[in-house]
Structure formats: structure tokens, C-alpha cells
């Protein structure tokens, strides 16, 4: 690599690291206030999986769209949503991205093309596919990306959505985050045959497999895949193995796995990995530290913002239902 190339890679690495650290900080902050009872609903944390949203979304423009899952904080932040409004949403406040109506499971920020977390496994697939179809119809050059877990690959919409994207050659990147679990069950118990990438290939979709804890590798694979989408070659599929460090929900104490297993996987933290690489490449410890400190400050500010945000009044419950026939 030339010096210029190395510099570009380091800059990219720092961008991805910042993205991952912000996600991690957001979720750790959310977990801490949840423990204090400040967040009413349940949380699905993506700690340990941050390389996926960071790596993929670094290749997306503001106008590009993504569809997400119940585990959507990372996708939201990586696509550009502000943590303050997101935190306010978890608190159920008026300044939340969804004005307190959605909560964690429906977090969304349409201003940055984040078309929503989703409470239904596989529910985002068709939304991303349709957004890509709209982009094609409008000819505006947008692409879309669709995140889903290992559990979604056994639901009908997986087949229907992949097939649909293929036959219309839609610019959509399918991103399968295999984090080792669907709720309490391992993918090996419920997924027949060679797995998700083989299924994508059987539908004629070019497939990329990558280490899901290596942010640079995720980024590069997504870059190549999205390049194909943008060039009109139709959909692409990105499959990555990662690991869900926390429980399925914040309440899940994971009796179905051993502490050793978690310990082992924790050692492969995507943030630590990238941090180490960047340090090797000569990035100063202080610079790396600064990212963490800034993120920490940002999230404390987000909590303060959320706390200060008004609780939506009861009348808010009746708004934004529909124009005709709205409740009164």
C-alpha cells in the first residue's frame, strides 16, 4: 500500500471505530438507565455486533435507506441518527425519534433513511426491497440495505424478498447478522442445510461472506456488494458471523449457554480488534482514547436530553393514526 492508501485506510478505520464506539456507548448508557428504571420497555442490545452496522452503513449515503430489526440501535446510529433523540425515544419522550410512540423496538429516523426497527422477525426485508423498487421507479439512484438475523432466514419473507429483488434486479443489499442465537435457540438447531449464503446463491444472488467482528472486512465486502447494486447489477447478499454478547433481551440471563463460551467470544471484541489494528498502524493512544471519551460525553448528554424531554401528553396518543377516520 502507498502512504496515501494507508492514510485512507487509517481514516476509514477511525471512522468505523468511532461508529462502533458510539453504538457501544449508546447501548451501555441505555442499559445503565434501564437498570435504574428510567426506560419502560424492553431492550435488545447488539453489544459485540457493532462491526456490522458500522461497516455496512459507512458505504451508504444519507438518502439511501435501511430497514432494521428489533435489535436496531446500532443500525440507527450508524446510519446517522442522533443518540439524543434515540435515547429520548427509549425513555418514551416527546423528543424521541418516534415521539415516544415506538420505543426501542420501533426506533426509526426517516430523515437519515432509517426506515425503522421492526418487532416482527423478517419484517424489514420487504420494506427494504420495496424501497429499492421505489428508487428504481423514481430513478433517483438510491440503494437500500436490509439487516436481519440468523433467525429470519427461516421465515417466508426471506425467500419472497430475495426472489423479488433478484427478478427485478433491485439495488438492495441483504445483510444477515448471524450472532449465534435466535432468542434462546442456536441457528444450527433450526436452519437446515448449508445455511443462509447457500440459500441466497440458490436464488442467484451474489454472496459475500465475512468475519462479522472485523469491521474493515465488513466494510470492504459491503463496499464491493453495494458497488454492484449501484451499477445496476441487482441485489447482493452479505453474511457474517458475529456473537451476541448480551442476552436476547436485557432481562435474559442466558441459562442456555456457558460463561466460558461468552468469555471466549468476548475476547474477540470487534472494537478492541480494530483499536489494536489502528494502534499497530501508528494511531496514537490519545486519539483512540478521545473517541471513547467523546462518545461517553455524547451519550451522557443524550441521557440528559432524554430526561429533560417532556413526557407526551395523553392527547398525543390520538394523533398520527390516520387522516380519514382518526380517533377523536
Amino acid at each position: 500500500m502507498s502512504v496515501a492508501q494507508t492514510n485512507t485506510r487509517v481514516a476509514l478505520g477511525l471512522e468505523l471505530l468511532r461508529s462502533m464506539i458510539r453504538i457501544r456507548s449508546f447501548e451501555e448508557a441505555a442499559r445503565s438507565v434501564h437498570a435504574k428504571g428510567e426506560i419502560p420497555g424492553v431492550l435488545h442490545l447488539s453489544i459485540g455486533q457493532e462491526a456490522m452496522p458500522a461497516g455496512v452503513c459507512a458505504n451508504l449515503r444519507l438518502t439511501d435507506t435501511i430497514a432494521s430489526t428489533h435489535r436496531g440501535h446500532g443500525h440507527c446510529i450508524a446510519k446517522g441518527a442522533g443518540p439524543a433523540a434515540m435515547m429520548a425515544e427509549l425513555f418514551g419522550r416527546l423528543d424521541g425519534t418516534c415521539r415516544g410512540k415506538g420505543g426501542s423496538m420501533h426506533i426509526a429516523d426517516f430523515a437519515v433513511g432509517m426506515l425503522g426497527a421492526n418487532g416482527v422477525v423478517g419484517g424489514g426485508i420487504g420494506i427494504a426491497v420495496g424501497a429499492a423498487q421505489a428508487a428504481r421507479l423514481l430513478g433517483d439512484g438510491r440503494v437500500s440495505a436490509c439487516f436481519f438475523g440468523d433467525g429470519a432466514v427461516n421465515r417466508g419473507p426471506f425467500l419472497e424478498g430475495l426472489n423479488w429483488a433478484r427478478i427485478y434486479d433491485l439495488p438492495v443489499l441483504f445483510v444477515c447478522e448471524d450472532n449465534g442465537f435466535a432468542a434462546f435457540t442456536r441457528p444450527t438447531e433450526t436452519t437446515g442445510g448449508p445455511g443462509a449464503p447457500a440459500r441466497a446463491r440458490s436464488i442467484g444472488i451474489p454472496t459475500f461472506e465475512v468475519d462479522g467482528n472485523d469491521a474493515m472486512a465488513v466494510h470492504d465486502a459491503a463496499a464491493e456488494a453495494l458497488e454492484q447494486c449501484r451499477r445496476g447489477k441487482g441485489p447482493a447478499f452479505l453474511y457474517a458471523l458475529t456473537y451476541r454478547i448480551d442476552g436476547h433481551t436485557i432481562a435474559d440471563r442466558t441459562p442456555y449457554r456457558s460463561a466460558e463460551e461468552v468469555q471466549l467470544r468476548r475476547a474477540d471484541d470487534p472494537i478492541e480488534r480494530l483499536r489494536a489494528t489502528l494502534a499497530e498502524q501508528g494511531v496514537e493512544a490519545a486519539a483512540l482514547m478521545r473517541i471513547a471519551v467523546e462518545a461517553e460525553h455524547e451519550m451522557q448528554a443524550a441521557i440528559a436530553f432524554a430526561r429533560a424531554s417532556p413526557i407526551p401528553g395523553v392527547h398525543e396518543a390520538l394523533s398520527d393514526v390516520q387522516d380519514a377516520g382518526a380517533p377523536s
Partner: protein
Amino acid sequence: MNEMTLIAATQAGLAEEMRRDTRVWCLGEDLARGGVFGQYAGFLEEFGPKRVVSTPISEAMIMSAGLGAALAGTRPVVEMRIADFTLCAMDELVNQVAKVRYMFGGQARAPMVIRMPHGLARFSAAQHSQSLEAWLVHIPGLVVLAPATAADCKGLMKAAIRSDDPVILFEPRSIWASTGEVPGGDDVTPIGVARIARRGDDVTLVSWSMTVPLALAAAESAAREGISVEVVDLRSLWPWDKEAVLASVARTRRAVIAHEAVKIAGFGAEIAATIGEELAGTLVAPVVRVGAPRIPVPYAPLLEDAYRVTSEKILAGLRQVARGRSAAHDDRSSATT
């Protein structure tokens, strides 16, 4: 005014809207071949394959790709072929389409029309004959329409497409081939406004979709028996024109509701309950609901007839409320209730 079939009227309404607004497009099975009932004939030629999308047999994806495309700036018309197949896309419709605007705090809109030809047709049995409008009225976020005339098939199609809400358009498949007058211009039927299909004084008969002609026939027969029936064609089921119905019933003090769907927990129950709530003391006879028995739709014609709401069954309902109590008796009692 043009005389045209109901199906041609829906087709004209859709075509006009697609000409008016290039963001409007349609998707569904066999659309490139004119659609299974021919209601998209010529569309591919006029609008091209990006706006007339022939899909795989993937109802869940038809619905959710429609939703994604609506969220991303287009206005899809989603063809379900027949209402029964919507059951294959119910999660997408109810958990996603209906809820996106609310769930996301108003950031998102889903301007979609979901076309559902519904009800009995040609002895199609249990899985191709259902009327499930009560279900969708129950779901917050959805507008539910059910036209009965050529003018409204066109006018509500246009209204549905122009609405920023997701709109369910129940289409009266069994009477699609019948004809009616359609205004020549850009006539949009207002959502939420009933149509008084016939004036009358003794009984209010509320109906919609394919049951309206049966209601009119029953009213005609009733007239020969001296019962003057006001027929209200609801057209919109949500929002429904409570004011029009209550105003009519307040005057006639007798009400019959007739729909093809199963009577139990049908939308007629909501109307009857509402009439009870609003006009309880003034009614001179209990509200009568005419609907199908709680059975799946059988195949054999005579059995289907047992399921089918007919003008005779509606007439029986009319007689029942008209007979109920004598007017004189009513007048006395109403003074005290």
C-alpha cells in the same frame, strides 16, 4: 355521464390516476397479462413494466414491497387478486402497513391502496369467497372502503389513491359486470360519506358493496307491501357515516343492516351496537342484522344459497322490524323511553 360496468369504472379510475401522478404504480400477480379479471388490460402497454409490475405468487412481499415503496416516495396500488389471499399478507398489512405512521411518531406515511375483490363468486367455495371487512375496520390506521356502484368504484378508487392513508378497497366482484352511470369528469367520491341509495320513511336499511343491489331489490319488494325503506349505501366502512345512518334511523326508528359477511362479529354488529348506544330509547323495534350464518362458504349452489344473503332474507328482516310493533304503540311508548 357514461354507462359503464363497475369493473371498467375501477379500471378507468386507476388509469386516470396513473396518468395524473407518475408516482402511482401497481403490483400484483399476472398484471402484465391484464390481471386475472382483465381489470388491468392495456396497462402494461400504456404505463410500462416499472409501473405495472407482474409479481411472483408472493403475497407477503406484494404487500411489504408496496409498503417499502410507499415509505420511499411512491404511491403503490397493491393488487391482492381476491380478498382471501390477503390472509397470506396479514402480518405485513396489520403489523406493518397499518402501524408505520403511528409507530414511527408521524415520520412516515404509507400512501397505498390495497385492492381486495371480495365475496362470493361462481361457486368458489371456502377459500375464495370470504368477506373480511369487519377485521380491517377493527385495525387502527386503516381506511376501509366498499363501493357498490360504478360511480363509486371509480370515485373511491380515485379517493383512495389520493389519500395519504393506507386504504383498503373492497371491490364487489360478484357485481363487477353490472353497469351504472359514471360522471364524465374527475369525480372523486368523498371518503366517509354514505350515499342514500333510496329514500324511505319506515325502515333504514344499511348496506354496502355487493349487498346494495340486493338491499334495493328488497326495498322494492317491501314497498309493494307498504313498507317504505330508506337504503343507505355506506360506501366507507371506516370512517363510516354515523351521522347519515343515525339521522335516517332517528327518523325511521327502525333499522336493518345487511352484509354478505358472516353475521357474528361482522361489521353489522358495530353499526347495530352504535345505533343502540345512540338511539336506544327511540327505536320501535330491535335492530335486525342480516348476514351469513357462521359457516365456511360451501361449494354446492344450494348450500351456497344457505350462506348467501339474498334480497328475500333482507326482505324478511325488513318485515320483522316493520311488523315488530305497531306505529301507534310505538308513538305512545317512545314518549316515555
